[in-house]
């Protein structure tokens, strides 16, 4: 009987929806409070993200006449569902993830593209001018960061000799000095993740000052709350993926200590995201594509060649 309930616990409670929702709320509060302290002001109290979520789900939902109602309401849940599958393949409390098989890295990368496609469809199905522009920007930015993200995780793959996330984490646990060799693609992966999460400097799609809400202009109430929750959960999941691939996962610990180490290391990666957000202005959409093809792709390719050289030596 335990075998029948365990999958439900894994998906819904730990490390599934409930754990991710609570942890992402905590990370959102750290983000806002740290940004505020660096701006020399006070910042929100700890219950603020929960209060925002509760307020949003109690508001009325207004759908435009020409919009497709079924797609409009169901897209946020598709985004959350695909991210929840990813966390099952990433090492959380020990270096053995719950599901592992050779090639699960590729499945993870493809599953992480689905939220972006749901953003595009959300904007397109709203049929208002501002959301159309927002969804076009989402697709343009996709051309910018998807290739560097894939290339930069291919570097450590080649070094570790396997396409499974758990095996890469185990490889870096055994050879800790190789972590320093992979720093160029670490930086490329961090910047590409900023683009995927639509945070400053790459938050052109839903920039409040230019297009009023981008792809989310016509959203309000519960669908909007779910979309914003999906962006926060995506941040935690991407941080844990980068931790597993570049920083060695939770080393050799298991159980409670492994879990604590996981929390500390993912918070550290999120801190780097916060520092990028504080220090830069928003970049225009065509400049995002130019920047990533000019700097990020060569960096990742250089890392792949370096890893090939080390492997074959």
């Amino acid at each position: 009987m335990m075998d029948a309930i365990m999958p439900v616990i894994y998906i819904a409670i730990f490390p599934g929806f409930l754990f991710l929702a609570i942890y992402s709320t905590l990370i959102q509060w750290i983000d806002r409070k740290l940004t505020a302290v660096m701006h020399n002001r006070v910042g929100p109290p700890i219950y603020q993200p929960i209060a925002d979520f509760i307020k949003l789900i109690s508001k009325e939902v207004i759908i435009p006449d020409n919009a497709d109602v079924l797609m409009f309401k169901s897209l946020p849940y598709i985004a959350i569902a695909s991210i929840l599958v990813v966390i099952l393949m990433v090492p959380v409390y020990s270096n053995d993830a719950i599901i592992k098989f050779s090639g699960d890295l590729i499945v993870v990368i493809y599953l992480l593209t689905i939220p972006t496609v749901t953003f595009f469809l959300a904007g397109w199905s709203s049929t208002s001018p501002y959301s159309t522009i927002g969804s076009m920007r989402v697709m343009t930015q996709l051309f910018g960061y998807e290739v560097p993200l894939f290339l930069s995780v291919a570097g450590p793959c080649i070094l570790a000799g396997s396409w499974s996330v758990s095996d890469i984490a185990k490889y870096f646990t055994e050879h800790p000095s190789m972590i320093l060799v992979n720093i160029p693609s670490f930086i490329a992966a961090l910047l590409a993740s900023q683009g995927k999460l639509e945070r400053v400097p790459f938050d052109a799609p839903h920039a409040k000052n230019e297009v009023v809400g981008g792809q989310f202009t016509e959203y309000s109430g519960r669908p909007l709350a779910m979309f914003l929750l999906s962006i926060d959960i995506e941040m935690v999941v991407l941080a844990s993926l980068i931790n597993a691939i570049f920083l060695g996962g939770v080393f050799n610990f298991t159980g409670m200590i492994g879990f604590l180490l996981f929390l500390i290391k993912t918070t550290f990666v999120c801190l780097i995201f916060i520092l990028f957000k504080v220090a830069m202005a928003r970049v225009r959409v065509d400049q995002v594509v130019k920047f990533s093809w000019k700097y990020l792709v060569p960096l990742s390719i250089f890392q792949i060649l370096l890893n090939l050289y080390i492997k074959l030596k």
Partner: protein
Amino acid sequence: MAKKPLRILPEAIKYLSKDPATSKYPFEKAKVYPNFRGRIVFDSEKCIGCKMCMRVCPSKAIEIILSDEQPSPQTGPDGNPIPVKKKFDCIMNLDRCIYCAQCVDICPKKALKSSEDFELAQLDRKKLKLHYK
């Protein structure tokens, strides 16, 4: 010109160890400099009823009326009545006043003064019509 990426980051990190620059207003008193133009107060001993303040007020916020209680007439030692200064009241509409203090400047007997009181919000509009006696 030279480009330095993340130019503002060293300054931002410096503020992690400093206090916020926000003053927690309702829980701390707000700092007001002297000569701040707050609510206008009226001294009826000095007012002579010339109504220059009414002539110069940009928003018709002040009104000088004859008071209900006048000082009683006095007689001098030779039996003739001595002229006694009449007493005036002032009605001030706080919701119309723009706190420019032009009435303070133009009063010839200095009967009006600016105080430093600025927390004047009320929920009931009738409380904003002050009657100074």
